[in-house]
């Protein structure tokens, strides 16, 4: 997109301002988390790690982190299994036949989570899944499926359908074709989907607000209470840990993509 035509000074100015607006406020979390004061502020006299120490000394924070991690792992496994198979099925079946299924799989991205959370509150009450690990894992898994379907579909778009035909033509069953031909080829796409499904569950708050109370208390839930009740630098430290963790996952995704491209 160059060809001797570049953006003007005005648009470049807005673009720079917008990127700074996007990135800078997030970076403010770092100095605040290192403050030596007891309240939200920039470091006054020295940098301090006491707020990080607070987190790791607090059983409540550690429990929340542990629970969120466990939930994210379980829901990601479920979403990856269901989403990958579904994407492969849709890819292989004719577009018209599977179009409805594809749209269905994208619904969680379109319908606001508040609506789903309200419905879940009632539905899980009937199924006795309120405030239970399994309930949250299932809810996060279902809403994580779209991310997997999208990334796996993208990987499949680059997959030569004749390889599947070749495998079937040589006598491979559906299971053998999946295991030996299709899955090894789209593994990076599946990994990307898994990473995004993981981040989705790890950050999810709205459903958790409705379907959990005491037994399940995730990290976002604890942060939410923290923001609404006592704004202190510990929150900044937690936020910073979250940012670093997310950046790590995104870096992993980038590394996988580069490997796929190579």
């Amino acid at each position, binding site marked *: 997109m160059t060809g001797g035509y570049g953006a003007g000074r005005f648009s470049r100015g807005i673009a720079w301002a917008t990127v700074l607006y996007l990135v800078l406020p997030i970076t403010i979390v770092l100095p605040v988390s290192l403050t030596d004061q007891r309240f939200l502020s920039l470091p006054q006299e020295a940098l301090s790690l006491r707020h990080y120490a607070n987190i790791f000394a607090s059983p409540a924070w550690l429990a929340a982190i542990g629970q969120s991690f466990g939930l994210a792992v379980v829901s990601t496994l479920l979403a990856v299994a269901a989403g990958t198979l579904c994407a492969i099925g849709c890819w292989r079946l004719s577009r018209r036949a599977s179009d409805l299924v594809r749209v269905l799989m994208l619904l969680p991205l379109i319908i606001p989570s508040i609506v789903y959370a309200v419905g879940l509150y009632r539905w899980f009450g009937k199924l006795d899944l309120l405030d239970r690990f399994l309930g949250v894992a299932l809810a996060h898994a279902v809403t994580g499926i779209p991310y997997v379907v999208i990334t796996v579909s993208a990987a499949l778009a680059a997959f030569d359908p004749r*390889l599947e035909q070749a495998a079937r033509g040589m006598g491979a*069953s559906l299971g053998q074709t999946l295991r030996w031909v299709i899955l090894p080829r789209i593994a990076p796409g599946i990994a990307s989907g898994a990473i995004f499904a993981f981040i989705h569950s790890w950050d999810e708050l709205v459903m958790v607000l409705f379907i959990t109370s005491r037994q399940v208390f995730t990290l976002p839930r604890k942060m939410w209470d923290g923001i609404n009740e006592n704004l202190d630098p510990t929150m900044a430290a937690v936020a910073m840990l979250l940012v670093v963790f997310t950046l790590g996952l995104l870096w992993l995704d980038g590394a996988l993509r580069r490997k796929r491209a190579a």
Partner: protein
Amino acid sequence: MTLPPPSASAPAGHALALTGLTRRYGAFTAVQDVSLSVASGQFLTLLGPSGSGKTTILMMVAGFTEPSAGSILLDGRDITALPPERRDFGMVFQGYALFPHMTVAENVSFPLRVRGLARAARDAKVRAALDLVQLDRFADRKPAQLSGGQQQRVALARALVFDPALLLLDEPLSALDKKLRGELQEELKALHRRIGRTFINVTHDQEEALRLSDRVAILDHGRLVQQGSPLELYERPATRFVADFLGRSNFLAGTVREVRPGAMALLAGATRVVQAVPEGAPRLALGTPGLLALRPEKITLLAPGEAADTEVAGEIAAWSYHGTGFSLAVQTTDLGILHVALPAWRAAISPTEGMPVRLGWPADASVPVAEDSHAA
């Protein structure tokens, strides 16, 4: 490779018959009522331009596409409903469809692995198959590290390693350059002779079809137009399409004016065109329009005073030289432009534009052909 030698008492290949095979996509008919049979050990080529339905037929034989009507019989057994993995056919795909994440040996071993063969038995067969295509040294390479010709051979080895009932080839040579294509045609033909299997090949390359096949089936707009040996098809095309698609032809249109035993004559303007009619061939009635196909290489340049069954005068409108001969386009009054191929070393003239010439050919040089049924 554990293939039985062709001299074994039982035929090594299997016979395939298609009856009334039809495939429709909505309102569009890709293949219409095709009936064909291939004898055991034969090399059949489905030949046609793109969109003629030849690949759809192959895909139905392989089991990837379900026929809308008709049936597929293997040695008399109906296999129309069998899924591809249960047909036991070897297939070389267009572009080869080698698994890029597996080595050459793993690719070739794949059909054996899905059949649950033990590792040792697999290795022996893979080695034999790679030997057969002279690729034993490349067993540990990935497909991307091979040339196009080598990839094609891997695809062949992979299609043959499990002793398939049939070998299906979908445009196996179309991705290669012309010279390599010629070499691999020879190899493919030799391989077919050596292992005696039944091969079904799909191509749009008429030269490849003539060189490789025992039998050629010509398809156009989803219909089977004519089938036969390469020689039959070239020498006695049944329709204008076949005469034009297989090699080149001049078409001579006229009205039937004389019918005698063994011959007839058409009148095109003032030119009388004599046509031999072999014993038992269908005859055209007096006064009806007739169409003849005439190969450019069967026309000769008449020396002054020389006579032929049919003679026509004209002048050279265009000419070109291409090593083995001259191509002339001769403008005539009654027959339009006639294309003539002259062997260069025997050419009596050095052509120039506007040069008057006299052309002639014997009565058995041309053949009557039918107009195409779908012609608009």
